[in-house]
């Protein structure tokens, strides 16, 4: 399967900012954050359509999220993921002596993950952090 080298940016988006106030387990938060903006040419190149799932891997990890059309202009070779638990699965904890990890400008690979599912917050925590969680209230 075709893999594509891209630069990953993560950042704030208005919808992320708004939806995080709706609660981090909410569907609207999931929809606005568990996604990746990809340029139209790039997504064609890996044989995907918007709305399908994509796998992004860096040297720090790998995560499956939904590919979406850029909400703001995006050049080829750059992908954007809003801040959130999905973005941090693939960001690095090296801080170059500054305390600041690397969230922006990480080189990463993009590939189709049509058949895979995007994990919800609950599933992701179970998978990544193992400590069991339980429903509250």
């Amino acid at each position, binding site marked *: 399967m075709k893999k594509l080298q891209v*630069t990953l*940016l993560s*950042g*704030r*988006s*208005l919808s992320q*900012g*708004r*939806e995080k*106030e*709706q*609660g*981090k*387990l*909410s569907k609207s938060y999931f929809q606005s954050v568990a996604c990746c903006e990809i340029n139209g040419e790039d997504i064609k190149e890996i044989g995907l359509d918007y709305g399908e799932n994509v796998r992004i891997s860096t040297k*720090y*990890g790998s995560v499956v999220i939904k590919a979406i059309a850029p909400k*703001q*202009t*995006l*050049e080829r070779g*750059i992908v*954007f993921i809003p*801040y*959130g*638990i999905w973005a*941090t*699965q*693939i*960001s*690095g*904890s*090296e*801080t*170059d*002596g*500054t*305390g*600041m*990890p*690397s*969230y*922006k*400008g990480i080189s990463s690979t993009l590939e189709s993950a049509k058949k895979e599912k995007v994990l919800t*917050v*609950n599933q*992701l*925590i179970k998978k*990544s*952090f*193992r*400590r*069991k*969680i*339980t429903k*509250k*209230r």
Partner: protein
Amino acid sequence: MSQNVISNAVCTVCGCSCDHLEVTIDEEKIVKVKNACAMSSGKMLGYMNERITQPLMKKGNTLKPTTYDRAIEATAKTITKSSSPLFYGWSLTSNEAIEIGVDLAEETGGFFDNTTSTCHGPTILGVHEIGESSCTLGEIRHRADLVIYWGANPVHAHPLHMSRYTVMSKGRFRKSRADRKLIVIDVRKTDTAKLADVFIQLKPNSDYELMVALRAAVRGDEIEQEIVAGVPIDKIEELAEMLINCEFGALFFGLGLTMSAGKSKNIEAALSLVAELNSKTKFVIMPMRGHFNVTGANNVTTWLTGYPYAVDFTQGFPRYNPGETSAVDLLARGECDSALIVASDPISNFPYQAAKHLTSVPLITIDPHITPTTMCSNIILPSAHVGIETTGSTYRMDGVVLETRKLVDPPKGVKTDVEILSALLKRVKFLSR
């Protein structure tokens, strides 16, 4: 119906601290918010979503309801026993709570860090080396005829910034958008960039080179390279001319600068550029602070310890060196044996490796909401929203302090950060005696 309208309420979302909200309250519920941006009304109307209303403690593998007293007792025992406790968060609470938090870290000999270390920490490291030429936002509103947003996207992250404080605002000496130039420098054409008079798109991770070239151009030095950071030198020189020829320029920068390659050095370059510009005209620089009271967290910590974040109290006095004493580094090295998180969600926000270590030590969280961090916690102490359910003072991004108001009561039985933390401090003092 007894609707109550509160005017001039202070917003507690981003660093803009807009204080002109008009909030309508009906039977102890906020039903309407005027003058607010999408993020603000999202919070004001959605603050009751996914709330935790009772303290929870892990028994075996499940979280069980408990009382504040028991949860605080267990927390106090855990952190006093620890050799290297971490106290992290603090940017979404009041100065009063932060002050107690610092004392708590001091009392237990721990590490006190706030979210600065993963947003504008590099900015502060840059200021340590270069200083900064800055001002309050009103100065920019009144005087600035040129505004730059570099690696910042206020349309999304600080929605009212431009209309209240910069290009779209009405000042004493600048009446409208037409009186000002807006320059946006970013790696992509953001929604902010679409409003710009001049948009400069640079290659990712090359802000530093562009900043250096721009400074050289401002100085009038010859630049041998023809293209820097993907931008032709002519364009850089043109930009330099604009900067020199303005009467009052303001450079705002965001995480695009602090997070991309170079980090604190990008900021050093920006601060040096602005200092240089002051020999030609008046120029100021300001970071676009994210959380509503991250500036307060820096200020409170600084007046108590001399340092703005990442303070190490393990030896009984404040020590500081981000990269060593900052949360992500401590966690990545595994140097932390318990953690108290206040009003923050590091499990979502920290790189995986650091977050992973957090879930391997006793984790206690004080937060109003269910978050990935509370979901991984051993003890959860629910708290009231500052600025909605309780008062407290907060710092705008430019250091102007405002007193937030209490608009409604917190959910029944839910305590404030100040109440929880002072009870905890009292308990810790008792235990360490």
